[in-house]
């Protein structure tokens, strides 16, 4: 059973999240009003007939007072209504829902790829600190952090799809389609996580309890695996949580490069078609996902480390 303090922490954390979500929704609502001139005119283009522009203004509700528009928008959100896509003529919610699974699949695989690459790399670098192996691992992580995903993606596609023909260059449907996008998206996260693992495990290895374990006759491997490694994972998990935002925005570029049919690609297509209701829907959904994931990460930390609940 969850201890009372955990329940109180959860309530407090949820209460703090609600005003943030209202703020996010308000800012997203304001976006369409930042369009220079008339948003309806911008969506239809300069050559559009005035009657068409007027019709779209009514359809979007832009003819009503700002407060009424805001009230209708927020009431719609409460009902799960994100408006209607200008391009597709379908509910924004449906367009996003159709692609959400693909984005989640890509983001989760990228995080998995990052962990699988980063943890062994960071552990090896920490165990062989100051050696050639450490320098090679550190340099690889620095390069991984500096390499933009919009360059890594095409480079990987050039080698593994075009030259070697091992993997498809774009699209989705099989695990083979997932390899290059997840590597592209996971590379920077792997680099940051490897650096954090190296630093964190290095700190733990200098702790007295590791020395005591060795003094009791434990082998170096056992002392690392059974004691130091587990403790070193706490900051690593923190970094993974913090990098979630980078992964979510990274999907926008990665999906565009590999024609991955997710929410990120939908957002860019919506921008190109000036489909503002769809743009608003995508931005809102990505932000709300981010806020919710941060909330979940915080709750998991509080569950793992009781000290956090009392802060």
């Amino acid at each position, binding site marked *: 059973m969850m201890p009372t303090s955990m329940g109180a922490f959860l309530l407090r954390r949820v209460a703090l999240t609600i*005003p*943030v*979500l209202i*703020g*996010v929704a*308000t*800012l*997203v609502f304001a*976006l*369409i009003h*930042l*369009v*220079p001139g008339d948003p309806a005119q911008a969506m239809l283009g300069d050559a559009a007939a005035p009657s068409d522009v007027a019709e779209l203004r009514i359809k979007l509700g832009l003819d009503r007072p700002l407060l009424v528009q805001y009230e209708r928008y927020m009431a719609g959100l409460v009902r799960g209504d994100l408006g209607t896509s200008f391009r597709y003529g379908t509910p924004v919610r449906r367009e996003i829902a159709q692609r959400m699974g693909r984005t989640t699949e890509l983001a989760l695989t990228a995080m998995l790829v990052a962990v699988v690459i980063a943890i062994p790399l960071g552990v090896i670098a920490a165990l062989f600190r100051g050696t050639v192996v450490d320098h090679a691992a550190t340099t690889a992580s*620095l*390069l991984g*952090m*500096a*390499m*933009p995903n*919009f*360059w*890594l993606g*095409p*480079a990987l*596609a*050039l080698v593994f799809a*075009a030259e070697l023909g091992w993997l498809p260059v774009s699209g989705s449907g099989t695990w083979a389609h997932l390899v290059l996008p997840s590597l592209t998206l996971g590379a920077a996260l792997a680099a940051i996580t490897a650096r954090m693992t190296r630093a964190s495990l290095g700190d733990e290895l200098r702790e007295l309890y590791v020395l005591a374990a060795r003094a009791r006759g434990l082998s170096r491997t056992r002392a690392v695996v059974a004691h130091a490694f587990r403790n070193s994972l706490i900051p690593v998990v923190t970094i993974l949580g913090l990098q*979630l*935002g*980078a992964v*979510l*925005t*990274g999907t*926008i*570029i990665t999906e*565009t*490069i590999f024609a991955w049919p997710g929410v990120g690609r939908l*957002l*860019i297509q919506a*921008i*190109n078609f000036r489909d*503002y209701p769809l*743009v608003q829907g995508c*931005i809102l959904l*990505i*932000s709300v996902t*981010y*806020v919710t994931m941060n909330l979940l990460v915080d709750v998991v930390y509080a569950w793992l480390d009781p000290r956090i609940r009392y802060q």
Partner: protein
Amino acid sequence: MRKIGLWIVVLMVGAAVAGPWLLPVDPSVQDLPRRLMGPTWGHPFGLDELGRDVLARLLSGARVSLLVGLFVVSISSTVGVVVGSVAGYAGGWVDEVFGRLMDVLLAFPGILLAIALVAVLGPSLTNVVLALASIGWVGYARLVRGQVLKIRELEYVQAARALGATTPAILMRHVIPGTISAVTVQATLGMAGAIIAEASLSFLGLGVQPPTPSWGTMLDAGRAHLLDAPHLTMFPGVAIALLVLGFNLAGESLRERLDPRAI
């Protein structure tokens, strides 16, 4: 290792500034019959899809990237220092209001809000700077606020207050100077972030518009010729990675020198 970062930055800034004298080739001049030509002695980085010199465009694009970085960092750090120091020093409702505003802006991951702003304002260099600065100041404000909360309790600040110094004077003379080290480190790392962000927006077609050369647009245009002219993506990619690596290393080096406890 850390000094390498500074050298990379100095060399690349030097090349960007001296570009027109180092390579007196117009980056917009087209040589269509020789389009997509690979590297030669005459054109060390080859020609692009319109027969323009890739090296000349890279040097010109470097000026765009560095200028965007400089503007974004200058605006973000100025706004961030002012907001962070006022919020941290004043406390109370002022701190609460700015705190909630920062929470809302931080709820948009990475450059998502910048993408949204450029999407509605329209793609241009000015809008990219505005969009990136409008999210960039939050990091500085949070950093400065944290520093100010500590500094305002120090004896010399309390002494200045007891002597009747006004709040703006205390902030300008005693509080803000104490935050400069941390802000400098953040600004150096922020240059790397701004350069990547500008290139990302340009790559997505939301940043600098053709024919102005930008590393992001060069990469985007090069994607269509990945097989027949890989040099179009290779060189801008290496340039971005090098400059970002340089600023990251220089930032870490500065952090070691200015605030060894942060390591």
